[in-house]
């Protein structure tokens, strides 16, 4: 069902996909933020489960994860929040970003089953690369959850083809490094998108380092179908959220930030 929403969304044209961590800054407010993002034109959402050791993430998302864990967002709670987000935004594909140990501990089958039941369309596990992903992919298939592979700036062409073939869409990290906003080097990222498009037909989702409408437009022009904005928004949450009383101001500020990313001009 939710996989169909992914196909529909990809058919509609390029999507801006804000990333948020479930439970950041609090469980309730994170559900509000997801709703605000969709109302501001997000065509997809990328959703992280908080984990104690996010080794692929830079400071902004580490801080978001820290806020979520401090606020008591367990995996059990995260599934509940995910369900509410899916319910509030039917037809919006939800790509989960979950570190391997959470999936491994719960059990691959149980985790992917719960994710699909809660309304997720796809799952990316950044620290289970394709070579170790066979049991995970089997579980995804059984649960009717799409599996997404990550590729990087240095991934050679044959491996890119393998990743693309195993993936609902190919998640391309624009920069070599952890997640985070980058001031320079975006032209190289665009070249890489074009290069990857030439190698594979899989839809390309560009992530890592994006923070402006201008970058998003150029990424779409280069052939990306999905553009993820993560650290930029996580940082905004950290800045705007000081106390529970700030929730309304935060949601409004977050909504305008997403509007700036999706607005056609």
């Amino acid at each position, binding site marked *: 069902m939710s996989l169909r929403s992914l196909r529909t969304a990809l058919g509609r044209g390029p999507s801006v996909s804000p990333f948020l961590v479930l439970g950041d800054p609090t469980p309730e407010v994170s559900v509000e933020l997801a709703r605000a993002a969709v109302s501001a034109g997000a065509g997809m959402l990328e959703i992280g489960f908080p984990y104690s050791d996010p*080794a*692929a993430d830079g400071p902004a998302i580490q801080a978001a994860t820290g806020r979520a864990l401090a606020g008591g967002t367990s995996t059990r709670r995260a599934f509940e929040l995910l369900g509410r987000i899916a319910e509030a935004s039917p037809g919006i594909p939800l790509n989960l970003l979950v570190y*391997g140990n959470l*999936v491994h*501990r719960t059990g691959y089958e149980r985790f992917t089953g719960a994710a699909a039941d809660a309304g997720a369309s796809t799952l990316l596990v950044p620290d289970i*690369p394709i070579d170790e992903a066979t049991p995970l992919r089997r579980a995804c298939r059984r649960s009717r959850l799409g599996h997404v592979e990550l590729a990087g700036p*240095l991934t050679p062409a044959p491996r890119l083809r393998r990743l693309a073939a195993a993936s609902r869409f190919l998640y391309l990290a624009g*920069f070599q*490094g*952890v997640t985070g906003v980058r001031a320079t080097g975006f032209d190289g990222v665009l070249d890489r998108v074009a290069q990857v498009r030439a190698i594979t037909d899989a839809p390309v989702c560009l992530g890592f380092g994006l923070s402006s409408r201008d970058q998003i437009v150029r990424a779409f022009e280069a052939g990306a179908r999905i553009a993820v904005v993560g650290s930029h928004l996580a940082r905004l949450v950290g800045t705007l959220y000081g106390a529970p009383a700030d929730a309304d101001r935060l949601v409004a500020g977050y909504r305008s930030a997403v509007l700036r990313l999706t607005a056609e001009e």
Partner: protein
Amino acid sequence: MKPSLRPRQGAFGSFGGRFAPELLTPALEELETARREIVPTRTFRDELDREARAWVGRPTPLTSAPRFSARAGLETVFKREDLLHGGAHKANNVLGQALLARHMGKSRLIAETGAGQHGTATAMIAARFGMEAVIYMGEKDMERQAPNVKRMELCGAEVIPVTAGARTLKDAINEALRDWTASLSTTHYLLGTAAGPHPFPRLVRDFQAVIGREAKRQWRREFGGLPDVVVACVGGGSNAIGIFHAFVPEESVRLVGVEPGGAGLDSGRHGATLVRGTPGLLHGARTMVLQDDEGQILEPHSISAGLDYPGVGPEHAHLQETGRARYVAATDEEALAAFEVLSATEGIVPAFEPSHALAFVLRARESGELPAGARVLLNLCGRGDKDLETYFALDRSR
């Protein structure tokens, strides 16, 4: 074990593997190629042997310990890795990896450190080879191991405080992995223990295996035959796998790894990953992990910063699963008592880490964990200079 859980690369039974982000794959593959193609060459082996003798101080002696043995009621012999350059077994591994990094054309070394011993060893080899060194160290560890921070800086390394999580070893590894993901073209991540994604557990083991090879030869020559038991402390497990490796095929030899029992196994404040952990994915490997029932990694506790780690090398998880090695725990209190006993009986001040192994030997006969008459080889993997400040601050009036 479900056969499907066996990792595809670098497996030790159902443990090991390469559970690292795709962006690290190029670096890990480059390192694996170098491990296979460069390490076995004559040129590399010769360089390694030469530097091991001239700079690291190999071979280290076996020392019998009659007065300690009398206290324990078990004949105990020490492999003296505490006499190595830098004061711990860490030098074996940094020399090997730094040489390899040089062959690979890398000019920058990064490392994590807990107690500061591995950071210090990395800083020293970087100075000797004229390489840049950046050491990630938890802020809490920087406080409790201040002299080692100064020592690293003196050797020209940059020490970067890690403020995430519990600000200890686990968080320092995360930060080093993050650095490496961005810097892999110029940088080698000199991982300090036999953990992490493939090929690190094998790479580190093979550079530390000199400990057991040497000890086996020396034991034969000096005492005849083989020891009955080989004992070592286990944090990440590099000194233990180093001394175990040569003895694994010798079925008559019992292997015992001693983990940090902290304030006691039932207190929840310990680092006894093999004794009390469950299988999980941490820092690139499927291994035993201290985690909650949803997979969040727990904060370990130990008086010894070098053992304060919620994971363990995957080969140890395998040796435990197959029953080839046994793993037990010794508490902070037991380790401190053993630290005092060895100092007073043999005039050797051990590091807090091997004090855990010493504590096991001291109690093993009475507890029935080892039979009377067993001859024990113990890896004395580091000396206690770095711990003196902490020890005196405890103000133990016994």
